[in-house]
């Protein structure tokens, strides 16, 4: 039963991936600019028509768009995402090289967001109207309205330049992840503070909580294994979406903190019109989004027995 569900879900993935890759391939070719010419002009010399024509042939751009797409698909079946126009490096290994840094940062950001949101969210629900609740509201407001690059630069200035607690740049040592993870985490935390507070308050007022109390269950057990479990379900769905976008990398945060992740690689490819890299990136992102959604659905199945009955 469970295995059938899983196979069914994975089966749905293939047409989705095909559709996404075909659309992105087409869109790329509709935007202005010839990759061969961009590549040659990047060298600073006025390229001759012959040089452009030769380069188009080497890059395979002289073929029709469906032909190019088909050959890309055939390569994909061999797990080969092609060779980048601008760097001449294989896209698969380029993406794989950068992915661990992005995943690490995503993990750090999620941890930071939860470290901020869980205590503040739960605290605000337990002490509504208190200073803690007001603090939670303030932080939620700041988190939603503060641009990430500004917070990043502030943290960098005070944390690294003034107090010298953390390095300004790079991914070296455990301390280097603190500031970028905090920057990303702070931006996410606000919404969870409010979500957890609202949902937990609602759950605590429900009859099953009263019943549990009447039964004499210890309060920590009521909160942790009954009320909280139900209260985090809406947050979990949102978390799935945000995790997927975190795994796509953040060009601003990666640039500010000199973090060698995937976001900047993708944006550079867009400016260079490096079709092959963009295509590989879009494909990888599609796989990630689908996978994360699947995982979130599975976790919800575990947490919510009602879903399992359906």
């Amino acid at each position, binding site marked *: 039963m469970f295995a059938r569900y899983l196979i069914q879900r994975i089966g749905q993935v293939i047409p989705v991936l095909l559709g996404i890759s075909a659309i992105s391939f087409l869109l790329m070719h509709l935007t202005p600019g010839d990759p061969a010419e961009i590549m040659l002009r990047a060298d600073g010399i006025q390229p001759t028509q012959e040089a452009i024509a030769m380069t188009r042939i080497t890059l395979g751009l002289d073929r029709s768009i469906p032909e190019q797409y088909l050959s890309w698909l055939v390569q994909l079946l061999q797990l080969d995402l092609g060779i980048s126009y601008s760097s001449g490096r294989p896209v698969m290994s380029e993406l794989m090289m950068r992915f661990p840094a992005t995943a690490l940062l995503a993990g750090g950001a999620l941890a930071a967001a939860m470290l901020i949101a869980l205590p503040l969210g739960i605290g605000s629900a337990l002490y509504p109207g208190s200073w803690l609740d007001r603090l939670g509201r303030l932080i939620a407001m700041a988190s939603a309205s503060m641009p990430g690059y500004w917070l990043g630069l502030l943290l960098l200035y005070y944390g690294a330049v003034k107090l010298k607690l953390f390095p300004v740049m790079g991914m070296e040592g455990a301390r280097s992840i603190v500031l970028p993870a905090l920057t990303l985490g702070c931006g996410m935390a606000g919404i969870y503070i409010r979500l957890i507070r609202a949902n937990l308050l609602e759950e605590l007022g429900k009859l099953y909580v009263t019943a549990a109390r009447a039964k004499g269950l210890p309060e*920590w057990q009521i909160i942790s294994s009954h009320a909280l479990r139900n209260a985090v379900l809406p947050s979990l769905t949102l978390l799935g979406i945000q995790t997927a976008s975190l795994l796509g990398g953040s060009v601003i945060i990666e640039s500010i903190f000199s973090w060698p992740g995937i976001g900047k690689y993708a944006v550079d490819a867009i400016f260079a019109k490096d079709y092959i890299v963009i295509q590989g990136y879009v494909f990888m992102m599609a796989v990630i989004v689908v996978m994360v959604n699947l995982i979130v659905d599975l976790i919800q199945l575990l947490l919510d027995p009602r879903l399992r009955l359906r």
Partner: protein
Amino acid sequence: MNNMLNRSRRLFLAWVLLTLAIALVLGACSNATTRPEETSETASSEQTTLTVAMTSDAGIDQLDAGAYNGSMHVQAMIYDSLVEYGEKGEIVPGLAESWEISEDGTVYTFHLRQGVTFSDGLALNAEAVVFSFERWIHDPANSLQIATALEAIEAVDEHTFTMTFNKAYYPFLTELSFARPVRILSPSAVEPAGDVNGEFIQAVGSGAWMVESYVRDRETILVPNPHYWGEAPEVDRIVLKVIPDPQSRVMALQSGEVDIAGTQLGRLPVESLPVIEGDDALELLSAEGTNSHFMIFNPAVTALQDLHVRQAVNLAINKASIVEDLMDGVGHEAKGLFPLTVPYVTETNQQWYGYDPEEARQLLAKAGYTDADGDGVVEKDGQPLTLNLVLQQAEFPEWKAIGELMQYELQEIGIDLKLQMLEPNSYYDALWTTKAYDLILYRTYDDAYNPHSFLLSLFRKTADTPAVAWSDRELEALIDTAVGSTDLEERQATYDAIFARMYEQAMFAAVYYPEEIVAVNQRVSDFAFGHSTFRPILWQELKVGDR
């Protein structure tokens, strides 16, 4: 019930305390793990290490002397060229100690420096030089004149070789001073060694520096090449750190994590310059650049075919105000297409339109444009004079402010300027292909491409396309004469005529001369700017003191 809630509150507090405790322990652990790094850093600082900020990865694993991959700045540190680009484009000896050019300007004979070896110990002789060129020079995807006009390249003896071309072109030597693909690499840099079609495996040259270590997207460490033929550098190690964000480069300077930031290795943001100036530990240095920003007129636009209109646009722009008011004094007032740092540009042949809105209005009136309906925009035959200016912000953030200032200034003389901000690909598509603009902001190329290569690229038609910036037959003929001239005096006279012709016809609108800017901390002394973009710093002369 109340009791219950209190218990849960206590539980919550306990949980918060526990989380804090865990965070503290984790923090302590991370401190412990980073400590060994710090000690190694202090040990190496006695060895005079210089740390420099760079915008992007140096691409050492792909740094083939004969290709366009990786950082050209590092390419010029590892590999030598036959000749080097000196001050104001003077060609100075590099690996070639001397050279002769045949009477007709087509045969170049180079005499190589004796006793030069690559950093791997192999001898650098005529055969190695020919090998280096043969690897790329016959590739039709190459647009350099030394490649397209080459007839033969031959080693004559151990230290002599010749290059024969099918035409005379004085900038052959300039092209040989480029960062790439003309520099010489060791036959052992390819696999199989010495095979012209071999695959590049490692960056081995005869330059002053060689690679000690490299981590993609993070850092490159260079050390002096023990076999180097020239003066040995003063610094024991150069660490090139990848810091993509300009603001972060400023902070890395402030925190002392880098010693040098700026130049084309990684530009400093103009808005941060006061911060750097206010920091006692940092010093801000500047040098006149070799490029300029200017505005191209679309020759297909009827209004711009009128010389008076082009002159009026020029006179309406306050070039001094752009430097003083917009750029905080960084840069210089534009007085033509090329600043004085460019070869063949002199005080006398550099002549351009100043700022005179009154004269601009009169010129427009002479051209038949008057504001009959009093709406502030002049018109001719009932058509208002509206022009669209295409520009981009991604590569040149300052263009937005400059564009807005010019919009105001042109409004003052009755021209309605519409700004059209495009993303870089659309911008270049408009510039090179669709020509969907009336005016477009552009910049001249850097150093070694000036003035010949830039003029050929922008003001000279090719076999199948008209000139990009402005079509003028007289100018095109002059450019051909200049680049084919083997006589220095004749060449100078021709360039004088080129600049005069551009001025007479107001073929473009001068806008702004940028500046090279660098910030160094107190450890660094004897800093000197290089003469070309790909060698922004004279590395050999730098000295580094204690932290």
